[in-house]
């Protein structure tokens, strides 16, 4: 019998919403929140703990005083990292967050050596790669949140256009979790109806654009990033792993020859089960999508290259 314990590093809005969503579903036995800002993890842990009174089964929520308290977790979710600010270059941001990953990962390796890591920090695919390099763990235990969220955002845009079908729109988004993500309209179904029967090409193009800028749209309104959809998407991935449900979810995963690439993390459909990423599913891509995938992979490789040039991996 597994203990079903989840550690969440970074108790900001995304981490806390993931914890809240998991608690409301009663997915795991225990959640431990860690944050470098004093009091944040503690305050949120108490608040969420009290909300579990009305949840189907009570989840224990604790705040870690030290990294050592995030111990023996089945899954560790890493949401730590800083957002890009005013005069920071993309390169600066990469280095800062990669360094944060490095210190977080050292603790995870020490205290939760058997965990599956879900990376949520941005730039997502590069950070997922960093975690893989830092841990040296087998690739099935390191995945990044990307397609699960982008797919939800695409489904939302489709629903907005259609006015029906909410909750039954199957979408697939692959590639990087950024500028070059690849929503695949040819694979979308509403219920069991091909979306091409319901929406015109122009409408679909608009949906794709909106999906790509789904995160930015929320930032525009909110002044900060979205966290409900990311939080729920994390919880979905956690549930899949803890329940060993073997569902297909698009995640950032380390490729070893799949789709023709290696030594890079990028969003592809995978099977999630108790071992984390249990299988990469290779779907047939048409030439246009192959070219887009190449661009997407290149953009991630250039991020990895920046870190390499800065001697990060030495």
């Amino acid at each position, binding site marked *: 019998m597994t203990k079903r314990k989840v550690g969440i590093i970074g108790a900001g809005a995304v981490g806390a919403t993931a914890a809240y969503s998991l608690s409301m579903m009663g997915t795991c036995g225990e959640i431990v929140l860690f944050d470098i800002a004093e009091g944040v993890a503690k305050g949120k842990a108490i608040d969420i703990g009290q909300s579990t009174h009305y949840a189907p089964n009570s989840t224990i929520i604790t705040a870690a005083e030290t990294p050592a308290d995030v111990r023996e977790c089945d899954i560790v979710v890493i949401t730590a990292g800083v957002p890009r600010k005013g005069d920071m270059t993309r390169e600066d941001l990469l280095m800062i967050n990669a360094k944060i990953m490095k210190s977080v990962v050292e603790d995870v390796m020490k205290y939760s050596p058997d965990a599956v890591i879900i990376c949520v920090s941005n730039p997502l695919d590069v950070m997922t790669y960093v975690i893989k390099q830092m841990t040296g763990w087998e690739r099935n235990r390191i995945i990044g949140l990307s397609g699960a969220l982008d*797919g939800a955002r695409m489904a939302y845009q489709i629903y907005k256009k259609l006015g*029906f079908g909410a909750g*039954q729109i*199957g979408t697939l988004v692959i590639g990087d979790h950024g500028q070059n993500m690849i929503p695949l309209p040819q694979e979308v179904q509403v219920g*069991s109806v091909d979306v091409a029967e319901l929406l015109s090409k122009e409408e679909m193009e608009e949906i794709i654009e909106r999906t790509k800028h789904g995160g930015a749209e929320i930032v525009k309104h909110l002044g900060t990033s979205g966290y409900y959809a990311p939080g729920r998407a994390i919880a979905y991935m956690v549930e899949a792993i803890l329940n060993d449900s073997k*569902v297909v979810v698009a995640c950032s995963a380390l490729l070893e020859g799949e789709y023709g690439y290696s030594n890079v993390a990028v969003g592809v459909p995978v099977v999630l089960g108790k071992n984390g990423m249990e299988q990469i599913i290779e779907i047939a891509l048409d030439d246009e999508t192959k070219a887009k995938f190449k661009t997407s992979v290149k953009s991630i490789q250039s991020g990895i290259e920046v870190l390499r040039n800065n001697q990060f991996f030495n």
Partner: protein
Amino acid sequence: MAKGKKVTVIGTGNFGSTVAFILAMNGACHNVVLRGRNYDVAKGKALDMSQAANAARQHTIVKAAKGPEDMADSDVVIITAGAPRTPGMSRDDLLLKNAEIVKCYAKEIREHAPDAIVVVVSNPLDVMTYVALKYTGFPRERVMGMAGILDAARMAHFIYEKLEYGAGQIRATVMGGHGDTMVPLPKFTTVAGVPIEDLLDSEEIGEIVRKTRNGGAEIVNLLGNGSAYYAPAKSTTVMVEAILKDTNQIHSCAILLKNDYGYSDVVSGVPVMIGAGGAEQVINMTLKPLQQKRFKNSVASVQEMIDKLYDMDFFAELETEEKEEKQADDQA
């Protein structure tokens, strides 16, 4: 003044009971009414389920109907009544026997629950949906048959057996009649957005399609004294909950075609958008020539059975009624 939702289940056999039980476990509505031939059996099951609802911390109350008047104000009425299909018995054998049963309940619904949405699950499904439609006199959006959701669930299960992952997220599509002529559409079948054709070869898909067609019969043969009811009941509650919650989701259901897919005045399984008004929209998909041909065969087999009923003067009563109404109108 808002009121809780009410669902009447006609038939207290395994199928009807399981439908009622799922509704109670989900708290899908406030009232469930069980209407069966034997009041005591209905009452016993109703009590058992009401107690289960309390254990599940749900608000649903299940009651037994003393008479047809107890279905008054139902939002949804489900007709599960009918003689069961036994081994060796074809769906056609059941035709007239079940048509009489469905007719009787349809007339009750018309009188006592004139605003309800009717979900038919009695077999042969498409024909019984037609019978219910005719004898309630309701518009087509308020009379649907449950077929495609079940067939799709069966197909999804067989896909899962092959893949060994993706359970619960396989979206299969089955159109056409609920019977030996059902039309599974692997082209419109995906696992979390991944097309099935990227995961299985055509031989494997062919085997899945064959198993799906045979899905109901396989269980009949194993059980020996009845047909499946867990998956059929769950599939039925998917439709009922879509109506009660006004989900506006698409499900494959049997419905009267009105120039849909090129057919009229016959019932077949097609994707419909279900909401509070019932089948609010029929979705017309583009079918490939082979699928069109299969759909044609499927529709023809249903049409044939409807014609049989006409030949046996099953609808004569309605024609007489129509004539009388017309005469009354003319006189007025």
